């Protein structure tokens, strides 16, 4: 039986591949397996030490195999990862992808990667970006204090290290994932002081038209079970607003408002979460067009039926294509790989469509009920657009909401001019933690929809590389380019 070859140094890379896949989560793993099955030479590039992405983090190297606390949905990742590792592909773990661009000559793309401290450019005729999601920014006073983390971050520690939140733990925010995480932490023995639910009650009205589809969807059963479990085992406070983390140099308490009254809970660990958004830094920097999603309140790439972006030969699958969850991600990855195999001539149109038909049917089934969740769990506006002027928006450059509003009043019209004025989005995270907030803030201040404000133009390297790494780049003809705007 064939199996994936691990790439641990740049020297082990082929000069060119039919298909490069960025990300080894469910979409990337499924795409790799599908593409290899059609005879494509495939390179999978992933930042993490093992396959699984965030959702199936550490699935092949769990510190507590079979741990019930993580739930059956997590362990569904195991066969997917096993299939992936059995596929004849090149797999570079612990690898940073820092640039993607159309090759200077001929067709195809060039990808800037760093493996084991050395940089290389790799050529690929087709690319699938399976870069997944990240947690939506949660810009509230004190969110930069040590002791405040994302709930997903704490989940990563549970999956990868068997570490459970300890001491006085408060979860705050909204979204289905928040309840899942709470249930996992409780099942793993964490002592959760409270779950502060910030879902605005007005969302019911917006979500109601989508209720019938939700009732018929697989989400319902899971959701009800979760709600039942968490309600029974921890203190859930609804209708919470105006959250702030307080403490001198580190977190000491969380302050919030419930029913108009201010309350304070002492805590050692505050876990924030208000949904996830596509991680589009690489596709943005590669020039892929994107649009504002009015429901999910984020930018999503503009894609065709095969998940191909506005840049020919670059497809985007998984949650990076718009949030739809892990099982949909794998199906999207499969479809994107079928599309790539067709474009490379490994499938004709009939084979492509017949192969894709059952996958599409399953994807449609998985998507039922999503609209209800998207509407119901839209995060509250004051938790997306900080009303207090001294709240930090750009964590890297410590740019506050007040500075951003003042800049708009001064005539700054968009995030790129804002970047030039205030440096927000210019720090190492490249706007991952402030981009959406800045766009929504400018839109609100100018009274325009976010789609007219647009997104930060991101520049490669999309993750910092050291001067030494760059200096080590071989100066070959097959060089070395990236699109910026």
């Amino acid at each position, binding site marked *: 039986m064939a199996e994936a070859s691990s790439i641990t140094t740049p020297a082990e890379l082929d000069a060119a591949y039919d298909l490069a896949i960025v990300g080894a989560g469910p979409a990337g793993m499924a795409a790799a397996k599908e593409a290899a099955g059609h005879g494509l030479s495939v390179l999978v590039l992933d930042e993490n030490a093992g396959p699984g992405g965030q959702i199936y983090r550490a699935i092949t190297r769990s510190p507590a195999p079979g741990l019930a606390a993580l739930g059956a949905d997590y362990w569904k990742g195991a066969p997917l990862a096993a299939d992936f590792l059995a596929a004849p592909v090149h797999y570079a773990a612990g690898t940073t992808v820092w640039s993607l661009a159309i090759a200077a000559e001929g067709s195809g793309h060039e990808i800037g990667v760093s493996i084991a401290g050395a940089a290389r450019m790799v050529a690929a005729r087709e690319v699938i970006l399976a870069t997944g999601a990240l947690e939506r920014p949660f810009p509230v006073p004190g969110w930069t204090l040590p002791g405040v983390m994302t709930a997903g971050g704490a989940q990563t520690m549970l999956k990868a290290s068997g570490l459970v939140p300890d001491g006085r733990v408060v979860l705050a925010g909204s979204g289905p994932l928040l309840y899942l995480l709470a249930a996992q932490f409780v099942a793993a023995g964490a002592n959760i002081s409270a779950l502060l639910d910030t879902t605005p009650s007005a969302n019911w009205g917006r979500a109601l038209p989508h209720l019938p589809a939700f009732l018929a969807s697989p989400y319902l059963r899971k959701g009800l079970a979760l709600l039942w479990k968490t309600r029974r085992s921890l203190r859930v406070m609804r209708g919470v607003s105006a959250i702030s983390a307080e403490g001198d140099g580190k977190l000491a308490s969380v302050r919030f408002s419930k029913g108009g009254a201010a309350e304070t809970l002492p805590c050692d660990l505050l876990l924030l979460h208000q949904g996830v958004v596509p991680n589009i830094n690489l596709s943005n920097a590669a020039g892929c067009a994107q649009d504002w999603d009015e429901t999910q309140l984020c930018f999503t790439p503009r894609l065709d039926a095969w998940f191909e972006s506005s840049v020919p030969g670059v497809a985007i699958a998984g949650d990076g294509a718009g949030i739809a969850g892990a099982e949909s991600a794998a199906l999207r990855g499969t479809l994107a790989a079928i599309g790539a195999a067709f474009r490379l001539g490994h499938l004709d149109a009939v084979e492509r469509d017949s192969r894709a038909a059952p996958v599409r049917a399953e994807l449609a089934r998985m998507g039922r009920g999503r609209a209800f969740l998207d509407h119901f769990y839209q995060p509250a506006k004051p938790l997306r657009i900080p009303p207090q002027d001294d709240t930090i928006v750009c964590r890297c450059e410590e740019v506050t909401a007040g500075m951003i509003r003042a800049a708009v009043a001064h005539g700054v019209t968009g995030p790129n001019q804002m970047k030039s004025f205030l440096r927000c989005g210019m720090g190492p995270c490249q706007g991952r933690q402030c981009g959406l907030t800045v766009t929504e803030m400018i839109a609100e201040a100018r009274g325009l929809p976010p789609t007219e404000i647009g997104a930060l133009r991101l*520049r490669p390297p999309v993750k910092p590389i050291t*001067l030494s790494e*760059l*200096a080590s*780049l071989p100066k070959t003809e097959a060089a070395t*380019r990236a699109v*910026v705007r």
Partner: protein
Amino acid sequence: MSATGAGGQPDVIVIGGGIHGCSSALHCAMRGMRVLVLEKDYPGRHASGVNAGGVRQLARDFAEVPLSVLSMALWHRIAELVDDDCGFTSDGQVLVAETEEELTGFRERVRKLNDLGFTHEELIDVTELRRLVPAVSDSCPGGIVSRQDGAAVPFRATQAIRRKAETLGARVLEGVRVETLARRDGVWTVATSAGAFQAPVVVNAAGAWAGRIAAMAGEPVPLKVIAPMLMITERRPHFIEPVVILRGRKLSFKQFANGTVLIGGGHEGRPNPDTNETILDWAKLAESAQTVWEVFPVMRGASIMRAWAGIEASMPDHIPVIGPSARNDGLYHQFGFSAHGFQLGPGTGAVMAELIATGATNTPIDAFRIGRFQHDPPQSAAAP
């Protein structure tokens, strides 16, 4: 929309909202002219907003020196001129010699400048070089310093100049693309994506797109669209005051007050002026990284945070086109600064306004005449 609408017909239409267009708008407005700036994107979107911000008289072509000296005087009172200091700091610029041979050439250059009456460039020995730039590699034998030089924040500077021009009555229209130019009865009609505008005088300050504007006026030029690349590091401990440039290898190097280090020097990516996109050439950026590695050992642990390129116009002789059209009355050119026009912005705007208002200037700009590229029989943009 027409120019007879709000604001009345302008005296001058400036095409291009870069630092040059905004500066000419400002200086024309200061002389009481009604000015309309047409910008296809937003002011400072391209080379003017994303360049290295070097404010440099150092190492210029001799033809540019008088204009550069004039512009430098304006930079030193920029806050007074535009009500914003534009982030301008004057810590000098140093041209580092990497070899004795280079230093010999530098000596000759400084002597020649002195003969012409310019004293801003000063030859320095290894001791003074080490004092000014302690981090430079031990192998460099000396250089030239221009102590009045410095750097500014490009986007902020362009915006400040634009805003001051607006304060004085200039109008700036963003997202307006010029489609055709025609002149009849002493009046230019500029047809744009937002309707036609009319004025007796047009200034072509369209940067990388100035060649298209010149061609619309029947005056094609051998302009090359280029995409000079830059990269910047994370905030690092402060180690250098002046801007450093090399002659033999392409490098310019500047640490900002916030600690970030900008690495440039003219390696070019590939521009696409139709889409505003540029394609970086990582092999050449790797060369820059290698040069920094050698000249500044202290930088070896630095991280590169971003790299980008601005879209700019370059002329075959690497000096700009400045002055009246050779073929059409009422048309003035101000482009082709060949990736070193940022410092010239304030001064060139002043010269343009002087030319438009008085028909002449005392600043020598003959070397920049557009006619140097014209060998064909004259054409004119006059309507038949």
